[in-house]
């Protein structure tokens, strides 16, 4: 059977006749079998090489958690006033791959009775919603100004001047034993979504 197939495959045949060896119904030819075997082994080797290296590059990157200052005390209730933002900067432990260090968290805090959702404290993240630069509070103009592309935000973090697409994030605030405690970060999607009510 095998000998017959081989003979047919190597012999030159007259034009117009069937070129492939005679293979019984439901069986594959030797050539086809070898093609599949080589293709399969080659594919396994390629996958076996790429799977670990891509995993090594991608998994730690995609599973890394940003460190935040949730749970930290920002100071006493009496430290803050309604008129002006106070810039609070503190350090929290951070792990970036093998590198363990302290990273700086920056929050702008102001009292505001209208902002009832977070206990009458407005706590604004200074990370610009445009491309991630740090905004700073301009007391003369009553706005947050981004140094990179000139975005401006009002005293509730809402956009008053583009290119920023959405308001600055705000944080939950709880008051415990007279201490102002920072909570979770809240991104806002609509241009004038507030943190009250």
């Amino acid at each position, binding site marked *: 059977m095998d000998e017959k197939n081989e003979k047919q495959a190597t012999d030159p045949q007259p034009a117009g006749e069937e070129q492939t060896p005679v293979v019984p119904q439901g069986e594959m030819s030797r050539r086809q079998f070898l093609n599949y075997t080589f293709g399969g082994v080659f594919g396994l080797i390629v996958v076996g090489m790429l799977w670990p290296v891509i995993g090594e*590059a991608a998994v730690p990157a995609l599973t890394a958690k940003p460190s935040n200052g949730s749970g930290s005390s920002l100071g006493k209730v009496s430290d803050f006033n309604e008129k002006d933002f106070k810039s609070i900067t503190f350090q929290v432990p951070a792990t*970036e*791959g093998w590198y363990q*260090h302290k990273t700086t968290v920056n929050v702008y805090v102001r009292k505001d009775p209208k902002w009832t959702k977070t206990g009458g404290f407005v706590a604004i993240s200074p990370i610009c919603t445009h*491309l991630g630069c740090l905004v700073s509070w301009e007391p003369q103009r009553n706005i947050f100004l981004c140094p990179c592309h000139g975005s401006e935000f009002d005293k509730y973090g809402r956009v008053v001047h583009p290119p920023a697409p959405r308001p600055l994030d705000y944080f939950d605030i709880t008051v415990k034993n007279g201490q102002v405690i920072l909570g979770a970060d809240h991104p806002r999607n609509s241009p004038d979504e507030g943190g009250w009510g």
Partner: protein
Amino acid sequence: MFRNFYRWLDDRFSIGPAWEDIAVHPAPPHVNPKYSNWAFIYCLGGITFFLVVLQILTGIFLMMYYVPDVNDAYISVKYIEDTASFGSIVRGMHHWGASASLVFIFMHTLRVFYTGSYKNPRELNWIVGVLLLLVLLLFGFTGYLLPWDQKAYWATQVGVNIADSLPILGPWIKSLLVGGAGVNAMTIPRFFTIHVMILPAILMVLLVGHFLMIRRQSISGPL
């Protein structure tokens, strides 16, 4: 002596014809400064290639001192700049060469565009050229972070947040690019790997294709 050595090589490898293949290619009059005052516009790609070679050379020697680590990156660049002999010159060449190669690749692209050289049959070479332009831009982007100073940090912050703003895939691309939730200590060795290993490999393949195609198809005709 050199003649004997050449003969010895030629006997074994028959390099005469091979060398002629590489070096001897008569240029048409419109790219020859003897016949056309505008022939120099056909030098822009060659100048870009020269600058890329210069970038590779200076980059290799910068790597002798540079350390892609969150604690050492800045001080190793400062050492190259302030202390190492000729360090500021080599880094200066790499710094200005980066901008210059982008200026020249852009002018080369404009030349190819205005002379219509991208048209049939050179469409594929145009595509490879656009990929080369993107690769050079990525070289600039990843190299900019490596000194790990304020400008590097914030420029990268802005750059990866532009990637982040892409619909659906944006956050994934950003995380894969920086190796974490944001620009962090892991971003430096990652950008370094892309800058000195991955992009040069892609660059070599594209450059070989670019040059083989132009040799095969020759320079496009005059306007």
